[in-house]
């Protein structure tokens, strides 16, 4: 549950979800459920943790947010829109011919650090960014958001070994554990067992929390960074795919279903009600 202490008018989840719905409707596109499960994670990161020294998306010395599960990019667009890094036109004309914002994270857009979409890439790029900060002795932090389905990919575990061996305590992987991947439940496609235990055994300092509880997210992120351990960090966020719209929640068809007039209106109403 959100608490009044940590809630804020900035990056309100209901507002972010409304932006996602409007973009998805305008672009007649998919991946809505995948964006909704990481709304609170991104809200908390943008509100309280990500540092952009000169308030521009490409600020020197910034923290890095790597959206390895690039198909959740509408959630990040919503945050970038609120930061003023995207225009009304870009949001309203999502997917219009000749437009720039794609359906997957593309690093040519200031504010997106990686070109992902092929899964298992962003994590390694993030490890490289974290290593760069260590080599330069800066205090920059790198966050890599991965999906639970995405961690089927082998390079994730290659990167995890490296990050732990090189004590990249400035690196945090956030696993969006919504329990689904494209074709079904993760437990049916490729059982993951305890993700927390897996990262622990790879040498990470790991914790599992409710990925929609902003106060819990905020506290867990702060606590992981405050730890004196030199281990890289893993935040396992238990989430709900499609969170915020009852008919989308835990309904995997919203990985690939497009909005029509009716479902858009109903979803917008549901999101407003949940505000």
């Amino acid at each position, binding site marked *: 549950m959100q608490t009044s202490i940590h809630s804020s008018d900035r990056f309100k989840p209901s507002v972010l979800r409304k932006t996602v719905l409007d973009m998805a409707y305008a672009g007649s596109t998919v991946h809505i459920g995948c964006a909704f499960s990481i709304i609170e994670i991104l809200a908390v990161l943008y509100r309280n943790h990500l540092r952009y020294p000169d308030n521009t998306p490409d600020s020197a010395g910034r923290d890095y947010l790597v959206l390895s599960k690039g198909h959740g990019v509408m959630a990040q667009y919503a945050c970038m829109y609120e930061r003023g890094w995207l225009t009304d036109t870009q949001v309203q004309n999502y997917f219009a011919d000749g437009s720039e914002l794609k359906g997957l994270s593309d*690093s*040519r857009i200031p504010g997106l*650090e*990686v*070109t*992902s979409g*092929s899964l*298992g*890439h962003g*994590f*390694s*790029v*993030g*490890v*490289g*960014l*974290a*290593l*760069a*900060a260590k*080599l*330069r002795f800066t205090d920059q932090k790198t966050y890599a958001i991965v999906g639970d389905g995405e961690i089927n990919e*082998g*390079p994730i575990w*290659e*990167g995890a*070994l*490296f990050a732990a*061996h090189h004590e990249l305590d400035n690196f945090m992987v956030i696993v969006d554990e919504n329990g689904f991947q494209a074709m079904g439940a993760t437990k049916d496609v490729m059982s993951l067992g305890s993700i927390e235990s897996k990262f622990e055994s790879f040498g990470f300092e790991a914790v599992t929390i409710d990925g929609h509880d902003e106060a819990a997210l905020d506290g867990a992120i702060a606590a992981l960074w405050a730890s004196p351990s030199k281990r890289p960090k893993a935040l396992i966020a238990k989430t709900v795919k499609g969170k915020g719209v009852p008919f989308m929640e835990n309904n995997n068809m919203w990985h690939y279903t497009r909005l029509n007039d009716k479902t858009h209106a109903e979803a917008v109403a549901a999101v407003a009600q949940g505000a």
Partner: protein
Amino acid sequence: MRQAFSDTLVALAKADPNVLLLTGDHGYALFDAFRKECPAQYINAGIAEQNMVGMAAGLARAGFRPFVYGLSAFIPVRVIEQIKLDIAHDNLPVVLCGDGAGFVYSHLGTSHQSTEDIACTRAIPQLRIYSPADRFELVRCMTQSYECAQPVYLRMGKADLGDVHAGALSGSIEELIQLRVGSDTRVALLATGSMAKAAVDAHEQFFPDASVWSVPSIKPLDNASILELASRFNAFIVLEEHSTIGGLGSAVTELCSEFHPVRTLRIGVNDRFSHKCGTYQYLRVEHGLDLENIRKKISSFVGLPASVKTA
């Protein structure tokens, strides 16, 4: 060639602390000097090539200049998607050094042989492909890779075949370099990597009137020079220790077919794996890339008699 590689890498790294060497647990003795001279710039990324190339992209984003080393069977082919997406897409200055291209690991079999790497990389936008013939071309390829600050695949083949140049090179590595001058306009030999030495040997032993060029840059290709040669010569012989599909021979014929068609014999690997094992020289013979086979193919193609030692 390996000594030149090590020396150049050490020199680049000492001149620029942003130069990093990443290796996928390969290059045991090769990097002794680097580890001694620049230990803070040496990273053994473990036997994890995909992560290594992704990390190199992250390091390059943050201003570093990674040289990523591996066997050419793994760098680039195993990590082709990381090269495409993490590096080339964003034009990041990463130099991908693939060692042992062609049949160098002749005894180890298909996993370690690399005759499809050029074909795999050529279609990736913004990626340069350099294929040095000897230590002098290698040094220039490496310095130009650093200077251009763009993604480069550096294809390193058999290292001990001998030099084709008399000394250090100073011009652009992205232009053809003439190795031998001949008066016969019936045929021009264009060769890259290890086969440049074979082309020079063919000239000296069998076709002294044939002109020979080295092509150290597969991409960008020196289109202007090749088309100029196409207008002067009746036929091209293209030699490479790579599949005849998708390599230098393909690049030359694709170019010429559009602007100035010229009969071209592609001498390379004929779309098959190595089924048998043996020395490097054995596999060159087995695939028809030894000097005698080259002589026969050229003679047959352009109607030159065998062993024409014209004055």
